[in-house]
């Protein structure tokens, strides 16, 4: 009888267990697709029938957690723990997540320790899922002991060895690797998971986060794919909102956040992003309401402030970023990311000592942060740098470069300041800190914390950091125009309290370069016009995307140039006052786009259309000569007979080939025609350089000079062209012109001692003695073999400039090296004679 009863019970139990497994699968499927309501309904109904089935309790609890019903989730997890006892590791873990959501850190830590205790006791006897829970708990505890992260990785690996099909463990491992900045492995891990199930929305989300880490535009694609499978995946909505925020598309960001909050009204992540949106849109009341809500839900949620700090920093609101980061660490003294954000932003504001201290705190707590580690190493290397204060600027340069560059940098910086102060009718706070790095990797670290960034310079407001001319190969960048550009940013940022849109400030800064010196500020090239013809250039309203999320490799460069043309267009049509007024309006505007359109009194479509018309008119001839490129050049190699007379590439190719073959007379008409078809292009492979080369070979100096002058007036970056131009002008007796070309060359590469000598000579012909003196100081800084001569020449220049005491000093230096230096002796006697007579040296 008893056996029969037992059998009956068993028979009753079996169909019930089988039904529960199937239903668990169904609930899981509903959950993965985002139909949480249906999943919960089904789950609760099943629980009513199969009370305290731990698997079911766990799943229902997780859905309750995801949808923000923390009380219910807690109940479900506790019931699961009671039912399962020690084995309920996963339930303990998810219960800890409930505590974390509420800010009950102590309770969460207790649970993690309990989990680890089970691991210690049972070691190899845990299932894959249990190991995953241990790994997650270990990961959480890593906040207090960073070495535990390595253990967490090992335990995740163990879990995956036990069950390679455990996608959740794979995703969790990927998230841990990403959290610890090992994005290469994180990407691989997410892709491995997706190779098993390409439609797992959490894996897609992990992939998107990884892509976002690398600033890849694919992050949007992956996020949207995740949402197409589970439209209620709250973290995906939150990520998408952040991606929109980075593009300053606040309305789109808000929509995503609200969708997230519809699913989980208590999502701290979503609320944090909403707070950011309010803040960036100057909605103080909205911000405070959300802030209060977050802190009500979790009084210790420091991540709110780290997110605010991060987003503020990305939007170049460095002062606010530092303030928010400060609040984060006050709330949570173990918020290592907070210290990092605080330190980085303090450095951007020029608060070097405080910045370093906070970065050290951050790194001590999280030694995996590559950015912080790199930045601390960079700060250590600043012991080799010198700071020089002059005229409202604090210039920081490497000891090896200081003697040469100091004067040039200060001179140009002060020129720029005076120019911009008058033009913008604004004076930014001083001193302005300008840092020059002779190692590009160091500059990269300073700007973003990682080596290898493609920028030349960056402005944070009161601080500018840039490559020094030694950081790049000769001819690859112009330090003068870069400094001018960055200082323009200083004005734009400070005038707008850092609220100027990225494209606006970049475009305006490039435009300012063009106005500063002939040939500065980028110029049009065939690639740009081809991009225009192929419809790849962005409309003005979307130009920010070109900087933040480029869709083809050259789009960033094209966006810089295109944006500068927008300002050329605006100033021509409306005048500079309009530009200045729009700039000022950004400070208090919650919509930069609206501020722009209001300032121009145009709508978006009209602006795009008018700018397009402007471009078409400006480059009409060139566009025509470049159009139908494939058709024109689809045939194999144009020849002198087949080259189409109105097609730029045909003419250029034929002319180039003939020049290379030495057929100079034949080449000339083709190159001239190419120039007629595209006169605006003056790159290294342009008709200007080729014709100059041709004319020099033919000893037609005047024509060569004209080509070089035309070229450098558009493109001042070509070092050899500047030197050639200087030589030709000097030969013709145009010493002022030669000097101008040599000065332009120095803005590209200031380390050639012969250029400085030559420049000194040309300036001396024009009796510009102060400038002559500067050049001889530069020669001395470059450590010439003949120091006596350099000191003598410098003394002579000082004497001519009326600076007798400096002349004396230098002549003594010269004679100290070479006591029998006859010309120097005579100058010494002349200085003494002049001093005695109270006259100047003749």
């Amino acid at each position: 009888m008893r056996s029969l009863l037992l059998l009956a019970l068993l028979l009753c139990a079996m169909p019930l267990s089988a039904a529960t497994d199937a239903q668990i699968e169904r609930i899981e499927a509903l959950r993965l697709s985002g139909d949480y309501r249906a999943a919960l309904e089904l789950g609760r109904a099943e629980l009513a029938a199969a009370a305290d089935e731990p698997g079911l309790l766990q799943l229902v609890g997780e859905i309750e957690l995801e949808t923000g019903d923390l009380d219910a989730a807690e109940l479900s997890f506790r019931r699961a723990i009671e039912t399962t006892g020690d084995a309920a590791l996963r339930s303990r873990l998810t219960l800890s997540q409930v505590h974390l959501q509420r800010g009950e850190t102590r309770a969460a830590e207790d649970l993690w320790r309990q989990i680890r205790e089970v691991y210690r006791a049972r070691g190899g006897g845990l299932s894959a899922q249990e190991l995953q829970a241990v790994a997650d708990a270990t990961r959480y505890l890593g906040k207090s002991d960073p070495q535990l992260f390595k253990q967490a990785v090992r335990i995740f690996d163990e879990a995956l060895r036990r069950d390679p099909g455990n996608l959740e463990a794979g995703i969790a491992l990927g998230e841990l690797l990403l959290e610890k900045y090992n994005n290469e492995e994180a990407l691989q891990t997410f892709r491995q998971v997706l190779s098993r199930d390409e439609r797992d929305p959490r894996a897609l989300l992990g992939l998107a986060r990884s892509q976002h880490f690398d600033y890849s535009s694919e992050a949007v694609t992956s996020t949207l794919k995740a949402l197409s499978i589970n439209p209620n995946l709250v973290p995906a909505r939150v990520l998408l909102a952040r991606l929109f925020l980075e593009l300053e598309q606040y309305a789109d960001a808000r929509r995503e956040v609200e969708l997230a909050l519809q699913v989980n009204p208590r999502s701290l992540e979503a609320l944090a992003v909403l707070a950011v949106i309010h803040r960036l849109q100057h909605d103080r009341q909205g911000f405070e309401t959300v802030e209060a809500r977050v802190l009500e839900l979790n009084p210790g949620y420091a991540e709110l402030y780290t997110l605010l700090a991060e987003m503020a920093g990305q939007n170049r609101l460095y002062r606010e970023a530092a303030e928010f980061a400060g609040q984060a660490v006050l709330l949570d003294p173990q918020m290592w990311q907070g210290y990092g954000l605080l330190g980085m932003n303090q450095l951007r504001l020029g608060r070097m000592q405080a910045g370093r201290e906070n970065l050290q705190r951050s790194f001590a707590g999280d030694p995996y942060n590559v950015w912080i580690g790199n930045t601390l190493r960079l700060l250590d290397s600043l012991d080799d740098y010198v700071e020089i204060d002059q005229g409202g600027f604090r210039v920081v340069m490497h000891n090896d470069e200081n003697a040469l560059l100091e004067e040039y940098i200060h001179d140009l910086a002060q020129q720029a300041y005076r120019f911009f102060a008058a033009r913008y009718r604004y004076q930014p706070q001083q001193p302005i800190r300008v840092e020059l790095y002779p190692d590009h990797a160091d500059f990269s670290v300073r700007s973003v914390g990682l080596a290898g960034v493609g920028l030349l310079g960056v402005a944070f407001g009161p601080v500018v950091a840039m490559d020094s001319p030694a950081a790049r190969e000769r001819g690859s960048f112009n330090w003068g125009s870069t400094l001018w550009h960055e200082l323009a940013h200083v004005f734009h940022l400070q005038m707008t309290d850092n609220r100027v849109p990225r494209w606006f400030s970049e475009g305006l800064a490039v435009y300012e370069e063009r106005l500063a010196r002939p040939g500065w500020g980028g110029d049009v090239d065939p690639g740009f016009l081809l991009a225009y013809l192929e419809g790849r250039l962005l409309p003005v309203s979307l130009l920010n995307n070109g900087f933040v999320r480029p869709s083809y490799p050259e789009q960033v460069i094209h966006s810089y140039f295109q944006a500068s043309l927008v300002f050329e267009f605006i100033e021509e049509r409306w005048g500079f006052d309009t530009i200045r007024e729009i700039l000022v309006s950004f400070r208090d505007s919650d919509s930069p786009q609206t501020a722009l359109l209001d300032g121009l009194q145009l709508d978006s479509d009209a602006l795009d259309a008018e700018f397009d018309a402007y471009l078409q008119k400006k480059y009409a001839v060139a566009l025509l000569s470049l159009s139908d490129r494939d058709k024109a050049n689809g045939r194999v190699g144009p020849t002198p007979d087949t080259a189409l007379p109105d097609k730029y590439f045909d003419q250029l190719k034929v002319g180039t080939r003939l020049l290379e073959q030495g057929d100079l007379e034949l080449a000339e008409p083709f190159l001239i025609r190419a120039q007629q078809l595209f006169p605006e292009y003056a790159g290294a492979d342009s008709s200007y350089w080729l014709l100059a080369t041709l004319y020099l070979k033919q000893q037609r100096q005047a024509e060569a000079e004209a080509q070089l002058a035309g070229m450098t007036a558009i493109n001042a970056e070509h070092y050899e062209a500047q030197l050639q131009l200087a030589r030709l002008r000097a030969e013709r007796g145009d010493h002022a012109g030669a000097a101008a070309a040599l000065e332009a060359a120095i803005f590209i590469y200031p380390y050639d001692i012969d250029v400085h000598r030559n420049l000194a000579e040309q300036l001396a012909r024009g009796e510009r003695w102060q400038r002559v003196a500067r050049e001889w100081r530069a020669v001395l800084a470059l450590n010439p073999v003949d120091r006596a001569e350099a000191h003598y020449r410098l003394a002579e220049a000082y004497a001519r400039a009326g600076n007798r005491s400096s002349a004396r000093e230098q002549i003594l230096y010269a004679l100290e090296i070479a006591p029998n230096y006859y010309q120097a002796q005579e100058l010494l006697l002349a200085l003494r004679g002049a001093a005695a007579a109270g006259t100047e040296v003749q």
Partner: protein
Amino acid sequence: MNRLILACLAFLVVQPAAALQHHLLVVSGIGGTDDYRQQFALQSQQLKQAALDAGIPRDNIVMLADQADESDYRPADKQTLLRTIREIGARAAPEDRVFVILIGHGNERGDGAVFNLPGPDISADELGAALDQLGERQLVIVNTASSSGPFVGRLSGSNRVVMTATASAQEFQAPLFGGFFVSAFVTAGADRDKDERISMLEAFDFARSEVRRSYDSSKRLLTEHALLDDNGDGEGSQQPGEYQADGALANRVYLQQPPSAASGAPPWLVAMLQRKQALEQSIYELKRQRESLQRRDYYDRLENLLVELALLTRQIRAEGS
């Protein structure tokens, strides 16, 4: 008279009636290829001309070459080289200076190095033994060959300036040093102290700087490091200087032949030159004390001496004209 004055101005020491003579021995070793043969021949010719321009009597100049283009060149085999050194020893007065310049290739051998000659090469030991026969005479030995570093240790000695193109026998690439060393005497730029003559130190510094510049401009790693030793310690310096361990003697030795009593220097000139020499010595001594003096005091005193020197120089030139 002007040329005499200028020549005399160029010297620290006013020579006694029977003035010291300079002897130059240029050895152009085996070239191996046409390019090197031409290169070595050109350098030899340039040195010979520089020596003649410096006033060294033609009879005091001996040229040895692998393939002698001129009738007064001797073959550069070891036997001839050693015999030539003995002849110089027999001919030169005890106070004379002897310059031995080796132009060619070298290589490591055993613990040391050799200079390549047609037939058997000559080692540092063999050359050292031959030069030791010249006694206490002031010697300047310049080895511009590859792997020449070990020659410093063996040839170093009192009253000797020894230069090598490389710091060790392992620097076996053909060095650029020799060409630039010769250039110091034939192009502008080496006369750092502007006294219209090139000291051995200036020639070394010029060559070293130009070597570095050549490597830097072609973005190559520097694989040759020239040495100069003149304090007899057997350790050459890569950056000698007037006030460094090596360089003081080299700074006072010139290729220029000092004028002799036969040139007829008048007593007033002799007196002025002696005064000039004293001033130069005072300047030299003051510069040695630089670190121990207050800056202002140092430069005030220096200025006074320099003014006096300048006035004297002006006077000498004026009297001469």
